[in-house]
């Protein structure tokens, strides 16, 4: 415990947790590490048996074939993800009583394919919030000439390096965009890496909730007007991709996404489930022919 009387600064909320840990650093009893290790092993074992071994055993007990047994953990994972997403969406809508709009609907995204000029997009975002360049200049002390250069895509008129990023970060903060994401997008844009930038997200912070965007360019989210099925497919395929051979993931998941983009509605959902199942099966076949020499 910390001594409040003798502490120099007022403790931050929940700061005692951190202080407690810092004070006891290096003083933990010898068995603490062992207990933690065993807990971690136990937790992983439990997760593994619940998510992988249990569905396989269930499929085996039900007398299903080898492929169904292999696919069972995939299907369980898929169902869990769908349930979690549904739950999150429900919570999301109800948390937003003000105008009963999910905050995901308000997510703003810049994609190179929808909007060739990033500057135009930024200008529109600014104008929609009723901000003028003079407002931003007054707050940030950045000359309006530079702000105009950002909106006109004239990067040659901006100073280089850190200063340029700083300008853009401050601009984004004033407009209410996630600045780290805008800067990363902008870097990619300036260097012509629109392919990387096109699959990146800029979320508008809303109701004081931090947007869930993680580090910028690795975030893989789509335009907010994309149908739910397509968005779900991108997320789920991104999850199973790591389990599949690269060529198979690119070809089959990519083809499935194209099909889903062209066929929204219930067909998309059927395709998502069948794709996750069949890519799993095809991956097993690939491994079997690669390692066992058996050809289909």
């Amino acid at each position: 415990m910390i001594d409040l009387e003798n502490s120099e600064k007022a403790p931050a909320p929940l700061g005692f947790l951190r202080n407690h840990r810092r004070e006891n650093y290096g003083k933990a009893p010898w068995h603490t590490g062992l207990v933690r290790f065993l807990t971690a092993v136990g937790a992983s074992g439990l997760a593994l048996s619940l998510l992988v071994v249990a569905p396989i055993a269930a499929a085996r007990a039900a007398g299903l074939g080898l492929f169904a047994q292999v696919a069972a953990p995939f299907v369980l994972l898929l169902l869990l993800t769908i349930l979690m997403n549904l739950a999150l969406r429900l919570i999301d809508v109800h948390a937003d009583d003000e105008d009963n709009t999910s905050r995901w609907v308000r997510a703003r995204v810049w994609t190179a394919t929808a909007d060739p000029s990033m500057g135009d997009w930024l200008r529109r975002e600014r104008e929609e919030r009723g901000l003028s360049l003079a407002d931003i200049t007054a707050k940030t002390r950045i000359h309006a000439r530079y702000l105009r250069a950002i909106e006109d895509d004239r990067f040659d008129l901006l100073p280089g390096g850190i200063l340029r990023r700083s300008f853009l970060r401050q601009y984004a903060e004033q407009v209410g965009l996630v600045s780290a994401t805008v800067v990363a997008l902008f870097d990619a844009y300036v260097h012509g890496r629109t392919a990387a930038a096109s699959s990146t997200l800029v979320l508008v912070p809303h109701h004081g909730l931090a947007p869930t965007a993680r580090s910028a360019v690795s975030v893989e989210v789509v335009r907010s007007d994309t149908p739910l099925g397509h968005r779900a497919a991108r997320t789920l395929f991104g999850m199973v991709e790591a389990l599949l051979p690269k060529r198979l993931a690119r070809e089959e998941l990519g083809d499935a996404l194209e099909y889903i983009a062209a066929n929204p509605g219930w067909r998309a959902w059927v395709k998502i489930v069948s794709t996750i199942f069949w890519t799993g099966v095809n991956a097993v076949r690939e491994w079997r022919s690669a390692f066992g020499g058996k050809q289909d």
Partner: protein
Amino acid sequence: MDTPLTAKGAILQALVSGHAFGLEIIERVADRTRGKIRLHQGSAYPALRALEREGLVRSWEGAPEEVRAGRPRRYYELTAEGLRTARGQRAVLLGFLRPVTAR
């Protein structure tokens, strides 16, 4: 309906009219059989990879595409041997399907 074609045979015939990627091949087969034969994703892709191992088709990747979340398409085309095989199979099928009364 049971298909009278194997997946490999259908793919070879679909590729005679030019290179295509997986989904396009599946759609081409469905179009040309008026939807009667639909290649399944569980059979089409393993068949494509098997054909490539046998040297009847070759493949390459295109540019990454936004609609595929940055994944490229993989295009397939017939090799010279693949084209020979496709023509041979077509001749066999046509001969088999010739009306009996024509004899």
